[in-house]
C-alpha cells in the first residue's frame, strides 16, 4: 500500500493538508458503506418477511384428500329412478360417505364413534359426490374411488401441525381418529392434492372449504371502480390547475387543501363514506362500488399531486414549440404535455393503487368486513377485499386458518406484482426521450 500511495503524494501540493485529503476520501467511503448497509438491511428485512409468510402459507396450496370407495346407491340418490336433476341434487350424499367409512372401519358401531368417523371427512365433501352424480347420472349404481377433502383437523394432522405425542385431551384429534387415519394412510387412501378450493371458492367457516376467489374478485372490482373514478379526475384536475387555471389566491387555497387532504388518515375517509355514501345516498353496504368511491377519495390527492409534478416536469420549450406552430392550448396539452407526462402520472398511479390495495380500515367502516360466502357478480354485490379477508382469517380460531392467512397474503402480493407489472409495461409504451 505504501508503494501505491507514495507516487500519488508526489503530485499533491505540499501546502495542502495530507490528513484532510485522506479524511475526505474516508468520509466518501463511509457514506458508500452506509448506503450499502441500508440497502442490505432493507433487502434482509424483506427477505425475512417473505420467507416467513411463504413458509407459513405454502402448505395452504395443498389440501389433504381421502380416497373413499363410494357406492352411488340408487336407493339413496334416486329411489324412484326419475332421472330428475332436482331429485338427484337433493339426495343425501352424506349417507354415502358415512356408509363407505363404515365399511372401512366396521369396528365403529356406537353412535359416538360413527360421528367421530364421519368427522374425518369435510362437511363439504358431499358437494363433490353431488356434482359427480349431476354431471353424469350414469354413475348411479356403480362403485368407484372418489377423492374428497378431509376435515381441517385431519389436514393439519397430515401436514404435521398436530402433535401425536401429547395427551388426547390436548389435541383436536382423538386416539381413535388417529388410529383410523393411520389405517387410511396404510391403505394409501390419504394424499395431498392441489387445493383448488382455495382458489375458486368464497369465504367459509370451514377452513378446508374457504377460498380467496371471492375476496380476489371483490378486490378487482373495488380497484376497478377506484381507478375509473380517480384516474381521470386526478389527471384532469392536475392539468387544469397546471395549464389552465389562473394563479391567484383561489388556486393557492385549492393547492394547500389538496396537499392537506393527502395527509388525512384513511379511516376518516371511511367515516365520510359511511355518513355520505351509505347514510345519505343510501348506497348498498359492503359493495365494491362504495369501497371504490371511498378509496378514490383517499387516492385523489395523491394522484393530483403526482400528476401535477409530472405535468410540471414537461419542458416549457415543448409547449412553446407547439404554440409557435399555432396549436391551441388544449392541443398543446393533449398532443404534447399529456403524452410526455404520462410515465410520471403512471408512476404516481402505481404507488397510489398499491396503497389502495392494502387499505382495509376505511373499508371496514362501510361494511366490507362482513362474512360473505358468495362470489360478487357486480360492483353493487356484497363483497370483501383481500386485506380484509386476511384480517378476518387471522381472527379465526381454527388452526387451518393460520396457513390460509399467510396464503391469502401471498395472493395479495401476487395481485400487487401483477398490477405493478401491468403499469410498468404501460409506462414503457409511453416513455420517450426528449
Amino acid at each position, binding site marked *: 500500500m505504501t508503494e501505491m500511495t507514495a507516487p500519488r503524494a508526489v503530485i499533491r501540493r505540499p501546502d495542502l493538508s495530507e490528513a484532510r485529503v485522506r479524511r475526505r476520501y474516508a468520509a466518501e467511503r463511509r457514506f458508500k458503506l452506509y448506503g450499502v448497509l441500508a440497502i442490505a438491511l432493507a433487502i434482509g428485512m424483506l427477505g425475512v418477511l417473505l420467507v416467513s409468510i411463504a413458509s407459513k402459507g405454502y402448505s395452504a396450496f395443498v389440501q389433504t384428500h381421502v380416497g373413499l370407495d363410494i357406492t352411488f346407491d340408487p336407493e339413496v340418490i334416486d329411489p324412484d329412478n326419475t332421472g330428475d336433476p332436482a331429485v338427484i341434487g337433493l339426495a343425501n350424499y352424506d349417507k354415502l360417505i358415512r356408509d363407505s367409512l363404515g365399511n372401512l372401519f366396521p369396528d365403529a358401531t356406537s353412535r359416538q364413534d360413527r360421528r367421530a368417523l364421519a368427522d374425518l371427512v369435510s362437511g363439504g365433501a358431499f358437494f363433490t359426490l353431488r356434482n359427480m352424480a349431476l354431471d353424469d347420472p350414469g354413475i348411479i349404481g356403480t362403485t368407484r374411488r372418489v377423492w374428497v377433502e378431509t376435515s381441517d383437523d385431519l389436514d393439519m394432522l397430515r401436514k404435521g401441525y398436530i402433535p401425536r405425542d401429547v395427551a388426547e385431551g390436548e389435541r383436536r384429534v382423538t386416539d381413535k381418529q388417529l388410529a383410523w387415519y393411520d389405517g387410511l394412510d396404510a391403505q394409501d387412501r390419504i394424499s395431498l392434492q392441489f387445493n383448488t378450493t382455495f382458489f375458486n371458492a368464497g369465504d367459509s367457516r370451514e377452513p378446508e372449504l374457504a377460498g380467496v376467489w371471492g375476496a380476489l374478485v371483490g378486490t378487482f372490482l373495488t380497484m376497478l371502480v377506484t381507478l375509473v373514478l380517480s384516474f381521470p379526475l386526478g389527471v384532469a384536475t392536475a392539468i387544469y390547475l397546471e395549464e389552465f387555471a389562473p*394563479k391567484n389566491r383561489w388556486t393557492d387555497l385549492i393547492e394547500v387543501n389538496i396537499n392537506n387532504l393527502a395527509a388525512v388518515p384513511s379511516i376518516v375517509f371511511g367515516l365520510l363514506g359511511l355518513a355520505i355514501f351509505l347514510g345519505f345516498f343510501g348506497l348498498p353496504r359492503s359493495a365494491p362500488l362504495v369501497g371504490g368511491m371511498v378509496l378514490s377519495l383517499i387516492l385523489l390527492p395523491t394522484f393530483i399531486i403526482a400528476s401535477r409534478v409530472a405535468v410540471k416536469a414537461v*419542458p416549457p*420549450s*415543448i*409547449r*412553446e*414549440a*407547439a*404554440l*409557435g*406552430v*399555432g*396549436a*391551441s392550448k388544449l*392541443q398543446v396539452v393533449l*398532443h*404534447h404535455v399529456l403524452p*410526455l407526462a404520462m410515465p410520471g402520472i403512471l408512476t404516481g398511479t402505481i404507488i397510489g393503487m398499491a396503497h389502495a390495495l392494502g387499505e382495509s380500515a376505511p373499508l371496514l367502516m362501510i361494511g366490507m368486513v362482513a362474512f360473505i360466502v358468495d362470489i360478487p357478480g357486480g360492483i353493487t354485490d356484497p363483497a370483501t377485499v383481500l386485506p380484509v379477508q386476511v384480517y378476518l382469517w387471522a381472527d379465526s380460531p381454527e388452526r387451518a386458518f393460520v396457513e390460509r392467512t399467510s396464503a391469502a397474503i401471498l395472493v395479495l402480493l401476487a395481485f400487487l406484482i401483477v398490477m405493478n407489472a401491468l403499469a410498468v409495461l404501460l409506462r414503457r409504451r409511453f416513455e*420517450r*426521450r*426528449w
Partner: protein
Amino acid sequence: MVLAQAADVSDIAPRAHPGPQVKISARHVNVHYGSKHALKDVDLDINQNQVAALIGPSGCGKSTFLRCLNRMNDVIEGARVEGTILIDGKDIYDRDLDVVMLRARVGMVFQKPNPFPKSVYDNVAYGPRIHGIGAGRAELDEIVQTSLERAGLWGEVKDRLNDPGTGLSGGQQQRLCIARAIAVNPEVILMDEPCSALDPIATARIEELIDELRENFTIVIVTHSMQQAARVSQRTAFFHLGEVVETGDTEEIFTSPKDERTQGYITGRFG
C-alpha cells in the same frame, strides 16, 4: 390592452417606406412583466421579404418585442402588452383576432432547438395536421418534403423520416424546427437567437438558409452576434434598456451609427 387611437393608426399607413413594403408596423409598444417595464414605447417597421435583425445587450427587450409579434407573451403570467402592432395593416392585438390563426401566419424558431419527441416526419407534419392543411397522406408527404428541402435538411434526413427528431444533431434539429415553422406556410418567421446553441458550421448553414428564406418570408431575427446581424439582415434595430435606440439599414448602422450608444455597442465598448 389599450388600443391605439384611430387617428394614430391611419397615421401609420402613409409613413411606409418608399422602396420595400412595410409588413409589420409597431407603434408605442409597451410591455410590463408584473412591475418590470420591459419595453418602453417602441416604434418599429419591418419590411416585407427582408431580414430584420434586433440587436442589443442581454435583457434589453429584443426577445420580448419578438414575442409580441406572435403574441407568445400571452402565455406568460403577468405580462401586459400595450400599443399597436399591425401586420398587413391589421392590429394583431385586436379583440376579435384569433391567436391560433395569427401564429399560423407568424411562425417562430426558438433559441434552443426544441423538436417534439416524435419522428422527423411528425415534427414537420404537426403544424399542417392541426391546421388541416394537406388533405391526404400524399399531400402531407409533399408538404413535409418541400419544407425539409427549403430548410436544407431533406438530403440528410430523407432516409430517416421515422427516426426521432431529437436524435438529430443540434444544427439539424434547428433546421428541423425551421422546417416545422415553414410547413404551416407562414408569412413571417420570428427567430430568437437561432444559432446561439450551435457550432460555427451549423451556424453558417442556418445563416445561408435565412438568406434563401428571405425570398418567400419576412424574417425577424434576434441575435447577440453583431457579425451575424451584419451578414444576414437588411435592416437592424438596436435595443437598449427596453427602448429602440436606433433603427436603419444594416450597412448604415454598422458603418455610421448615429447614436453613440449604438456605436459603443457595435464596437464592443459595452454590452
